[in-house]
């Protein structure tokens, strides 16, 4: 692996330099779509950018009784992990560079959730702790389905490598897996109907309640990058592959925007579910779906 191309891929394209405006764009599409569903005009195009800049310029009030070093570390870790996940997406043709497989991508995408849980508990606020506990329950619920879906996709195509997965033609089983991943996305991105951890009417802002200023800006950014990584993963698996790289990249971006729009409309149209209903939804309804996908994949492999 060439170090220069790896760094270029991580920091410039599709890494930080392109992912950060992409994150703001997706956050804006989400807010705008929700506003339009409610017959409002909604925020201006640059709103997430203004929010980010404003938060950078705010001071953080003292937190009594906490030194806060750990609390400062969590948002940075979340942003770097999410940016790394975006950098792994196979937007460019393989030329060495920052290569990784599906397993690394999944691991990096899981880090922000773990950071949110840890941040809530280290802030020692009762609301943050409730939010973190909810986030933990949610993570355990959707991840079983999410991982089973990914395993079934990888097993049906005989590879864990993202590049090869993007280039292989999709099979019916892969579509089943993509659908299962899509069902898990609202929980992964904390939007309605699975917005339990940051339920603002019940537990204020959940794990983020004690954060302010630049640290909160980092959380907003990591949330945006999670949007880019998660929708990018689904788009990679769903979009057909062409020989020209720029058509591929354009299709990937369009498909990602479409998924953001779909999820935002779902978020605007639904209300928040309770913890037990959410857990039951993933463990009873969706798990069956994922187990079906995995078992049929294994059966197909046995037959061949």
């Amino acid at each position: 692996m060439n170090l220069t191309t790896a760094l270029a891929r991580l920091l410039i394209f599709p890494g930080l330099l392109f992912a950060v405006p992409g994150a703001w764009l997706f956050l804006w599409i989400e807010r705008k779509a929700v506003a339009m569903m409610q017959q409002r005009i909604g925020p201006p195009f640059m709103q997430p950018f203004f929010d980010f800049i404003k938060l950078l310029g705010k001071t953080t009030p003292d937190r009594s009784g906490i030194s806060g070093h750990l609390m400062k570390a969590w948002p940075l870790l979340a942003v770097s992990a999410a940016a790394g996940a975006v950098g792994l997406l196979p937007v460019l043709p393989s030329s060495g560079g920052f290569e990784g497989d599906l397993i690394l991508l999944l691991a990096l995408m899981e880090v922000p959730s773990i950071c949110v849980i840890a941040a809530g508990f280290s802030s020692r606020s009762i609301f943050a702790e409730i939010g973190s506990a909810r986030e933990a329950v949610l993570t355990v619920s959707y991840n079983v389905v999410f991982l089973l879906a990914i395993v079934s996709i990888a097993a049906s195509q005989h590879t864990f490598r993202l590049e090869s997965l993007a280039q292989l033609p999709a099979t019916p089983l892969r579509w089943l897996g993509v659908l299962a991943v899509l069902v898990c996305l609202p929980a992964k991105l904390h939007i309605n109907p699975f917005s339990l951890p940051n339920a603002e009417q019940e537990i204020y802002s959940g794990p983020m309640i004690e954060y302010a200023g630049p640290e909160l800006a980092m959380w907003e950014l990591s949330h945006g990058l999670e949007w880019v990584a998660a929708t990018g993963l689904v788009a990679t698996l769903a979009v057909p592959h062409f020989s020209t790289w720029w058509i591929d990249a354009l299709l990937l971006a369009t498909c990602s925007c479409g998924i953001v729009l779909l999820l935002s409309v779902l978020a605007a149209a639904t209300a928040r579910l309770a913890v037990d209903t959410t857990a039951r939804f993933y463990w009873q309804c969706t798990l069956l779906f994922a187990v079906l996908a995995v078992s049929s994949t294994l059966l197909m492999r046995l037959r061949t």
Partner: protein
Amino acid sequence: MNLWNRLMCYSRRRSPWLFHMNSGSCNGCDIELVASLTPRYDAEQLGVRLEGSPRHADILCITGPVTRNSVQAIETVYGQVGSPKAVVAIGSCPASTNVFIDSRVLDGPLNRHIPVDVFVPGCPPRPDAILQGIAAAAKKLAERGAQRPAVQPASAPDSTGVQS
């Protein structure tokens, strides 16, 4: 003013996040504040977001005539809002204690305790008046930058309701 400062000023004006606090209000102004976020008035066009934690907010919206019990809470919450910050007093109660004047349970008006940037009078004020107040506060916030206004404790109103 260099480019970064200009960008920061502009961003502050375009992204006021609110924290709403009730200091003994009858709930009339609270309903009107929530009404200003609804589709009819759509405060999000101004970049407004109602936040759950005072630490996330830029503008503190206070309703109510400031009861004795709420004074400590107001001071704590004001301290929790990160600088630069502004305060909008919504309704006639925080401005003058309104019809509750001379009540023994009150310690108002609001500007005896914290500096108030914008008063939105009315009982209750209309949502568009509240939005105008928030926009004015956001503009003040952007112009003032990080420097904080000095606390100017006003004297208690006398029995005729006139502040000296």
